């Protein structure tokens, strides 16, 4: 820069000076911002360390304690735990009683316990994603600016969806656990309610970006609101809706596992119990099963989304 400046005309030098001033100010703001971020980060880390049960550096040698808890007596134990096969170490305790969890379909064919529970968790996720999709679909057209000119209705629906989304799932699950007793239904209700809010928001944003020409055409031939939405908007947004549905399904598989761990049934509950009781082989079997399922669901959903909406499927969405 300094090499060029001597050759600038008066007005050019003015522009140059102004530009340098702006960039200096910008640099100051950036440094101040980074400084504030650094202070906030250091404060946060100090606070987290102070209020933690163990201090960071004291506990660092214990980092892999969890992995140590997972080492089974021999490698085959994991397979036995996974498929409910009898264990040679069986001493009548809960630690090696793998065959007891079998769920017999006929006299000889059974579903291993963890597979059944994994299926339960998957079902919780799918079922509640469908419920969330259904209600999110119904609500989203009332929240979209281009279809609902009445800002009062729009505002109410949007706030309602925001509350559904922000309301802690743990509380909904806990509340229904108190009423319905233990089981997967509190988890279904909790995940569904959250999904309605989350999908509703994504859906109405898709609707707002939709091409309004088909809707105009239907309006011109006298279509009423429902007809315009159903024939003009829905066909063009449906692939995106399905894509978001699948994305939400991936998230909900994880969410229903976590809710299960706090009492909502499914594989999460077994994982928590197994960790609590120190059953290495069982815990490892569940962790591996969970990992495999999540990878499978993610891959399947990614493949289907690519088919539905192409590369658009991999934009940010939550």
């Amino acid at each position, binding site marked *: 820069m300094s090499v060029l400046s001597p050759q600038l005309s008066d007005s050019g030098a003015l522009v140059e000076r102004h530009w340098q001033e702006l960039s200096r100010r910008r640099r100051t703001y950036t440094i101040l911002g980074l400084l504030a971020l650094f202070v906030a980060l250091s404060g946060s880390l100090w606070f987290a360390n102070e209020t933690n049960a163990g201090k960071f550096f004291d506990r660092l040698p214990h980092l892999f304690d969890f992995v140590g808890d997972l080492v089974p007596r021999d490698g085959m134990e994991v397979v036995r735990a996974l498929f409910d096969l009898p264990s040679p170490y069986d001493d009548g305790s809960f630690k090696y009683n793998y065959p007891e969890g079998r769920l017999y379909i006929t006299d000889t064919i059974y579903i291993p316990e963890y597979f059944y529970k994994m299926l339960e968790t998957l079902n919780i996720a799918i079922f509640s994603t469908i419920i969330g999709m259904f209600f999110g679909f119904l609500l989203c057209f009332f929240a979209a600016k281009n279809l609902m000119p009445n800002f009062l209705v729009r505002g109410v629906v949007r706030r309602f969806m925001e*509350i559904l989304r922000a309301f802690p799932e743990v*509380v909904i699950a806990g*509340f229904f656990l108190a009423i319905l*007793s233990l089981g997967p239904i509190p988890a279904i209700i909790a995940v569904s309610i959250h999904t309605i809010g989350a999908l509703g928001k994504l859906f109405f944003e898709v609707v707002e970006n939709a091409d309004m020409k088909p809707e105009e055409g239907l309006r011109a031939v006298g279509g009423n609101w429902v007809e315009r939405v159903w024939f003009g908007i829905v066909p063009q947004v449906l692939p995106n809706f399905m894509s978001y549905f699948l994305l939400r399904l991936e998230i909900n598989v994880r969410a229903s596992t976590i809710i299960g761990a706090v009492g909502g049934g499914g594989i999460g509950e077994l994982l928590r119990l197994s960790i609590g009781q120190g059953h290495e082989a069982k815990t490892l079997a569940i962790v591996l099963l969970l990992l495999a399922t999540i990878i499978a669901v993610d891959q399947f959903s990614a493949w289907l989304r690519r088919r539905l909406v192409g590369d658009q499927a991999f934009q940010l969405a939550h």
Partner: protein
Amino acid sequence: MSGHPMISAAEMEAISARHPALVKGSNHSRIRTIALVAGLVLYMLYSWWFFAIGGVLGNANWNIAGTYLADWVSYEVRPDVRIAGDGTMQVTYPRFSPLGPNASPDWVRLEKETVTRTVETPAATEQAAPTQKNSSSFSFMAPGAATGGSPQTETAAEPQTRTEEVVTRAEIVFNSSTSITVADRAATATHAGETLQVRLDGPGKVIAEGALPSWATQPYPGEKITLAFGFTGWADIDADKVSIHNRFLGWANFIFDTNSPFFGKSYSEIMSLIFSGERIDPDMSNLALAWDNILYNSEWQHLDVWTKLLQTIVMAFVGTLFATLIAFPLCFLAARNITRNFVLNQATKRLFDFLRSVDMLIWALFFTRAFGPGPLAGISAIFFTDTGTLGKLYSEALENIDDKQREGVKSVGAAPLAVQRFGVLPQVLPVFASQALYFWESNTRSATIIGAVGAGGIGLKLWEAMRTNSDWENVAYMVLLILIVVFIFDGVSNLLRSRLIGKRAH
């Protein structure tokens, strides 16, 4: 569009004859739609059966649901009117009553009398016997008060003369249309224009005069009668005790608990105490004392709740920030158009997949075991999971960049690092920052839930408050705080994102 001529019916038929696929082609998609909907319906029916939803919803205790929901925004005061054998009464409040010890609310109207009488002091062993229970008039005494040590257990009962103040008539007014009066071994309840008279003639002899109104139930003749007044409260009438549950809207003792010297004082009284009153505690000023009493309010535990909430916020903030900082350099390795090394690309991408697929729950358990319960575990869990997710998103964003800018920078002979800095970063940085902000906001929500498995933050506190089923008002308080925090962060994150990448920041 307007230039197209209208097609007549005959022409239309000719077209459909020539290109049947155009007209009938939609049959295929129609069948597919029907099959999809049918499949969905079948799946929903299957799930209904799989989870036995009908049965569970049928067996649910919906009355309790109403009470629990009411507990979110209201509280009960529960005085007991204990009736002695001679018809005299005492009104007691449970130990942790929201009104504190020595309560005398104006909705409980008592007529008192001082009597001197000879009563038998029952021994501890005798008190358990059912026959003796009613003859003793000391059932209002606290268990500790009646114990006279071991000698007293030898003599079964000891006559004693005492002078004491007893209640002869107690009137409890719930609201203008609902009240209960207990006097002379009889209870009169009035609600919704109907009056119920109950005679209390001893154990097993709780007898209602006339038919029971719809709001009263008596499961067994002669036993306890339960009166339900809706949101106003409810009452149990038994032979020796009338239990009142009077419900009030609001959160009881939200600022000062019953042990605080400021309890029960009006706003102006508290203000004058703080700014001009004598020191209550010689060690600290009244302002400090008041603040201390608020923070350590035994019922609401404000300080603990706020600390846990701050932990949740910190978990989301630090976890996301670290994830961004680590994912940022790694994503350059993962993007195949930046780093032209297949092995390195794949290794980094599989690392991201691994971090993401292990799931926040398992990371939370892993780090809770390592660091002990607390925010460090939560920070690490969010950090690990989101390094995977952000890394994946970032590398995909990098792979989709416009190559022209990079070529331009390269063509003027820039060094490789300068090519990335001036050719790539300006394109992706706003997107990166926007995604990081999005995850920051979304993690504030997930931090609540992983807290419940022990990874720090308000989650565990929420879960503990819910487990007893008696602290729903505390749950409501924490939920309200969480909602406020989430809404604020949502707003801040949206604002920053729209400044970064324009109006359509979603």
